[in-house]
């Protein structure tokens, strides 16, 4: 029962974890440096493996010899700094070191040490079993997975933001450099935004998008609430069939609707009007909203409503005084969805709007997509159209996430 004994397997696990964390962290560091400044050649493998082995060894030592959480952490940071110096020696042997490299190493290695020490917590060095090896593999996969997903999710949006804050010359000079000089004068930093907002009329497009999306919410919610109430609370023939039909319509492809709507709206003079767009958006979102509201109404007890009816309220009174207040969280979440769908909609805005006065943001973006218009302006436009949605989403995330799975936003 000597837990100070070290098995070969246990040590191997420690070494593998050490090497993995080192390579992943160094990679992250280099990626960050490359994007925030000058691009560097990727570091050679040998120094990474050597320092990785050192990380593994010191983790093993720490686990066996150092007692107490606090002292272990202290030891890890100290060892990390020493390994950082070794790294700088090995790496600087070939490349010329910059201040950035030195600071990077001094920060990165203690972090590597702390992370890998944490990962080693559940894995003993003696009596190491196959299960522990599996645990190591799972940990490696998890760390890698978190890195990978965070990268692919954050990176494009960071790229969007960084590009939007650059001048054309800066962007063309070094496309790989995604750093932003935040210290320059704000009128220069936000030059792209100012131009897009005021010269290309995006202020107006923001208003248009907001008006169209908000009105869509109103036009969608009223019939949907009435319809969902009827489908859940009233008995009539064909009720189940209707519920299915709603779901079916919700899967109809928009592209099939474009040609006939284009033809009819052109002849009726509804094309290139906000009203035309509103009607289409409402029709596209009513099935989703009705279906989601129906699911929510089904979870509400009917007792209260019946009590209201007995007390002499009319059906409409029941809906306004009892059902809607009870379902308010769901109605708000669904309203937000409808807002997001209308705000994001591209196809019909693109096909139906010709007059810049009534352009929505999505349509305005297409107008910007021109050889003559520099890219950072387009990215500024992309930020302008994305940010309100992101803010709304983050603010109401809790309510929205449940709804996303309940009905699923069409997309």
């Amino acid at each position, binding site marked *: 029962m000597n837990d100070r004994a070290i098995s070969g397997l246990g040590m191997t696990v420690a070494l593998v974890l050490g090497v993995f964390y080192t390579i992943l962290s160094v990679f992250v560091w280099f990626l960050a440096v490359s994007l925030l400044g000058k691009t560097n050649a990727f570091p050679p493998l040998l120094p990474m493996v050597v320092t990785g082995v050192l990380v593994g060894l010191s983790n093993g030592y720490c686990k066996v010899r150092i007692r107490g959480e606090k002292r272990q952490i202290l030891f890890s940071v100290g060892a990390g700094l020493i390994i950082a110096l070794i790294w700088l020696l090995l790496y600087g042997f070939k490349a010329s070191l910059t201040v950035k490299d030195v600071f990077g190493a001094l920060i990165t290695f203690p972090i590597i040490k702390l992370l890998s020490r944490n990962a080693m917590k559940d894995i003993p060095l003696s009596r190491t079993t196959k299960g522990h090896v599996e645990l190591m593999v799972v940990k490696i996969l998890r760390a890698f997975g*978190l890195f990978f997903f965070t990268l692919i999710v954050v990176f494009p949006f960071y790229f969007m933001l960084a590009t939007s804050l650059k001048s054309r010359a800066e962007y063309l000079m070094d496309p790989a450099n995604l750093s932003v000089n935040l210290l320059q004068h704000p009128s220069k930093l936000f030059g792209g935004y100012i131009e897009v907002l005021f010269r290309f009329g995006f202020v107006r497009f923001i208003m248009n998008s907001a008006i169209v999306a908000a009105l869509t919410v109103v036009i969608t919610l009223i019939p949907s609430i009435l319809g969902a109430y009827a489908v859940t609370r009233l008995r*009539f023939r064909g009720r189940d069939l209707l519920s299915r039909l709603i779901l079916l319509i919700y899967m109809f492809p928009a592209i099939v609707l474009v040609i006939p709507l284009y033809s009819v709206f052109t002849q009726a003079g509804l094309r290139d009007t906000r009203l035309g767009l509103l009607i289409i958006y409402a*029709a*596209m979102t009513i099935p989703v909203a009705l279906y989601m509201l129906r699911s929510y109404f089904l979870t509400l007890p009917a007792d209260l409503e019946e009590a209201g009816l007995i007390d002499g309220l009319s059906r409409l009174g029941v809906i306004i005084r009892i059902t809607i207040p009870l379902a308010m969280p769901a109605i708000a979440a669904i309203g937000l969805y409808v807002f997001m769908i209308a705000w994001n909609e*591209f196809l019909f805005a693109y096909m139906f709007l010709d007059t810049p006065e009534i352009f929505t943001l999505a349509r305005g973006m297409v107008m910007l997509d021109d050889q003559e218009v520099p890219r950072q302006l387009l*990215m500024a436009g992309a930020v302008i159209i994305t940010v309100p949605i992101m803010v709304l989403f983050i603010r109401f995330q809790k309510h929205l996430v449940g709804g996303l*799975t309940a009905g699923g936003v069409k997309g």
Partner: protein
Amino acid sequence: MKKYKSLAAQEARLAFWMLLPAVVIVASVILFPVIANFWISFKSIGLGDLRPPVAILRERVVQTPKKPGDELVVTYQIRNSSRDRDLSDVVVTVRIPKGASIADLDDMWTVEGKRTLKSTFDRWEGGLSRTFELRFITESEYFTRDVDPRAPTSAEIESASKNALLSSPFTLDNFRKVVQARHFSRSLIFSFVYPFLGALISILMGIMAALLLNRTFRGQSFLRGLFLFPYISPIIAATFVWVFFLDPFSGTVNALLLDTGVIDAPIPFLNAWTIDISLFGMKVPFPLARAMVIFFDAWRYFPFAFLFILSRLQAIPEDLYEAADVDGAGYFKKFRHITLPQISSVLGTIFLLRFIWTFNKFDDVFLLTGGSAGTKTLPVEVYDNAFGRGDIGAGAATAVLLFLMLSIFMALYFKLLKEVDDE
């Protein structure tokens, strides 16, 4: 008993009125267009036919009177705005200016009232243009009046035309054109490959992401929100970012790869049909643009699968895992024997939903590649036919084919849904 029955009838009537607004909007903007699309697909209609043809009249003074007794000579050119579609009931109205009288009158004109001349044509062929002349003798009164010197007779024209959507004959030409078009089979195949692989990869990514976040740790809900970003961001912003990102000349990816020495020449990610990849010494052509479109789909829609699977994972009873722990099962065993069977039913539903939605998707491919480099799918084909080539009929025919194929998947989905419900 009678009262009870009438109550039920009352309820049904109420339900009818409450459902009416939703049904009317959806029926007129979704169901009617789908039916109309079928109708249009059997008509030979171009984009220009949507604007109805009209008769156009041009009044021109060829001889201006100088003094009383002089002749005022006016010509009227009438033409059809359409080259090939006929007009009916063309009526030309000419007012004789005050202080002038008509010199001689053709029998095509009829006099109505004191000063109005009318001429009617039952039919006016497409592309037809004719000119008529009228001579007026002026008196002294003519010169005292304020007459428009350009159009002294203020001539007007009216015409009627048949709606092309309703009048042109039924034909199968559109379908023939669409199916026989070059590369139709190619875009048909990609229309299936794209949603299939896109759905598959997005689900695999969704499973991975869900497994990563199916634990409680600090920042878990933050990461969950973050992972949804690709899905909730506006499509136009997301596609522009990737297009610029992957640009061969000024894109970050190419610049990074070039700077680090991974590649020698920039790669046109979204415009390259294929790119040769050496695999074990053999050169294998890799369909790059098509792969990028599929990867984009996976990137954008993995959050959908992720959310569904995560909520399913959180519903798996904990004691299943505890029992497995007692048996000494490892992580991978637990995943294979507990997690996977628990989420398998939801995986099927997600796959079909994603497949259907991606099959319908127009925006993504259109904005990324415009359908070039082999990435054309049926929805993009619909757009290209109808608005790129201006052939509304052919576009509608493509949409009908798309809709028919889609209905097969929808039937499958409902069957699956019913099975899940029955379980």
